[in-house]
């Protein structure tokens, strides 16, 4: 009776801690599995109990450095060892784990206990700060993204120049960073240069650097971005904006792997991989004589094309999930998803700004949302109004959306008249306050915007 009581007491404690805790017998079979362990792995206790721990955790240390094996074999504790497990959805989860032996009252080893802490949020923040993106950050299952996936192993291995084409906001820099982080140059620097951001003369000194005395105020040598990218990757964004005279110099860099800094006489060797990106169809610029064809062919040894978000709508739910995970880590929130009507809006919305626009919409919603689910009321009003307008314009919509539009406008007018006081606006509209709240939520109208 007493034993039962203390066992229940222990269960309550274990299930209320934030860290994952589980125990194994001497054959690595799981004998207990707390709630946090269920949450982190995505595997229920019911499924985990009796299984070998390696078949539940799929950790990178299972084979070569199993902490539990070490503890059971030597009796020594393992404290705060890093590892990566795979959760039920196939995502790598970074953890920090500690182990200890479990003994019976006579001191015989019964098995071991492991506690582990989910470090995903910490790693997400670290990645955000360092920009250490890998293929895990290229989100999508659409055919165009699959094509990129198919090429990545070869691209990463080789040192060839890569040209990434895609509209603004499609993730060109992220892909360039992933190519860098997957290559053997990953320990080296990743240096990004925007070719359209500076006038031609300044750009050259920025790219190639200059030596003391090259021009007035050049009081000391300054290394260019090419030199800073030594041993790593130089990312030339908006390469189509490269001035004609710089195109010739870059061609020499790609052909001869050498250049001279401004005002310099000594030729420097280049040891950097070049990845370029453009938001236009560069081959067309070549045919129009706006971009050198020899440079184009040197840049486009491997060409990757990122489609616009409107061309890969099937990836929107995955991207939404991805950004929610990132913003949760960044802002310390626990938002679990978006309401169905928000997802419907995203699926119909014309994303002129591509993935960046979707990211910005979700970032905006994260500021306003203090609930577990992002609703229409957390999105910018113009986006929601566009949705109603689109519904009204769609041929199969009948008249209902037009009525909705009129109803939403009437609510806005009433709220403006009542200076944001819901009770007063409801009275003016001859509806109850709860009905007005429901409708405001539906049309994503926030009364505080009308308060003076």
């Amino acid at each position, binding site marked *: 009776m007493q034993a039962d009581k203390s066992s229940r007491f222990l269960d309550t404690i274990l299930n209320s801690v934030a860290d994952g805790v589980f125990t194994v017998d001497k054959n690595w079979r799981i004998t207990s599995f707390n709630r946090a362990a269920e949450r982190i792995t995505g595997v229920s206790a019911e499924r985990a109990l009796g299984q070998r721990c390696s078949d539940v955790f*799929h*950790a990178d240390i299972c*084979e070569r450095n199993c902490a539990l094996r070490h503890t059971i074999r030597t009796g020594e504790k393992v404290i705060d060892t890093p590892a990566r497990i795979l959760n039920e959805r196939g995502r790598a989860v970074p953890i920090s784990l500690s182990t200890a032996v479990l003994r019976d009252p006579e001191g015989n080893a019964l098995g071991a206990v492991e506690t582990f802490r989910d470090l995903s949020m910490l790693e997400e923040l670290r990645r955000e700060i360092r920009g250490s993106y890998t293929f895990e950050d290229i989100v999508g299952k659409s055919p165009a993204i699959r094509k990129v996936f198919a090429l990545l192993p070869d691209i990463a291995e080789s040192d060839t120049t890569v040209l990434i084409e895609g509209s603004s906001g499609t993730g060109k820099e992220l892909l360039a960073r992933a190519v860098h982080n997957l290559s053997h140059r990953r320990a080296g620097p990743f240096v990004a240069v925007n070719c359209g951001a500076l006038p031609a003369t300044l750009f050259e000194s920025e790219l190639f650097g200059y030596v003391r005395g090259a021009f007035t105020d050049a009081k000391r040598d300054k290394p260019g971005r090419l030199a800073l990218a030594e041993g790593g990757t130089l990312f030339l964004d908006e390469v189509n904006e490269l001035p004609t005279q710089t195109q010739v110099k870059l061609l020499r860099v790609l052909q001869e792997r050498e250049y001279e800094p401004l005002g310099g006489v000594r030729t420097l060797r280049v040891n950097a991989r070049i990845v370029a990106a453009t938001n236009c169809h560069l081959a067309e610029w070549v045919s129009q004589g706006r971009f050198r064809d020899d440079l184009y062919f040197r840049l486009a040894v491997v060409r990757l094309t990122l489609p616009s978000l409107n061309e890969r709508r099937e990836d929107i739910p995955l991207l939404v999930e991805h950004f929610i995970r990132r913003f949760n880590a960044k802002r310390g929130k626990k938002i679990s998803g978006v309401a169905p009507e928000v997802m419907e809006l995203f699926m119909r919305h014309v994303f002129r700004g591509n993935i960046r626009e979707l990211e910005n919409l979700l970032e905006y919603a994260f500021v306003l949302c203090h609930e577990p689910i992002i609703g229409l009321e957390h999105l910018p009003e113009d986006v929601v109004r566009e949705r109603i307008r689109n519904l009204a314009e769609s041929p199969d919509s009948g008249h209902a959306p037009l009525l909705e539009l009129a109803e939403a406008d009437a609510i806005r007018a009433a709220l403006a008249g009542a200076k944001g006081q819901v009770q007063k606006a409801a009275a003016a509209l001859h509806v109850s306050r709860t009905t007005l709240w429901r409708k405001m939520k539906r049309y994503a109208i926030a009364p505080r915007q009308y308060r003076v």
Partner: protein
Amino acid sequence: MRPNREKIAIPRFGEDVAPCFGASATIAIFITEDGEIVDQVDFTLHSQRALDRIRLLRDQEVDTLICGGLQERVEEMIAAAGIRVFSWVAGNAEELLAAYLRGQLHSRSGPSHPREQQDRGDLSTVKDQKR
């Protein structure tokens, strides 16, 4: 008539399929002709980089991969390389191979995915019989 030849890769941990493809030290490649195993080569892997593993599979012209835990993105990349994947299975490697050759192997039939196992499969039997 030329025999129907297939290369099947299984990352191994002792006699069992390795729990994590990305961290397995050995990948066994079985060559079958008309459903019979005619050869086997073991590769020892030092690099834990997923792309090196994918390249190995591709360079060895592997047709099918049978493995334990597999990162979602890596699975997509392997599939993009034209390799058939049976992931998230557990148990004795040779018995899993035999189940595959009989046409009785299903992805996600290991203990991490028992619901799908109940719906689809016979693989739990392979594992449970062994233990």
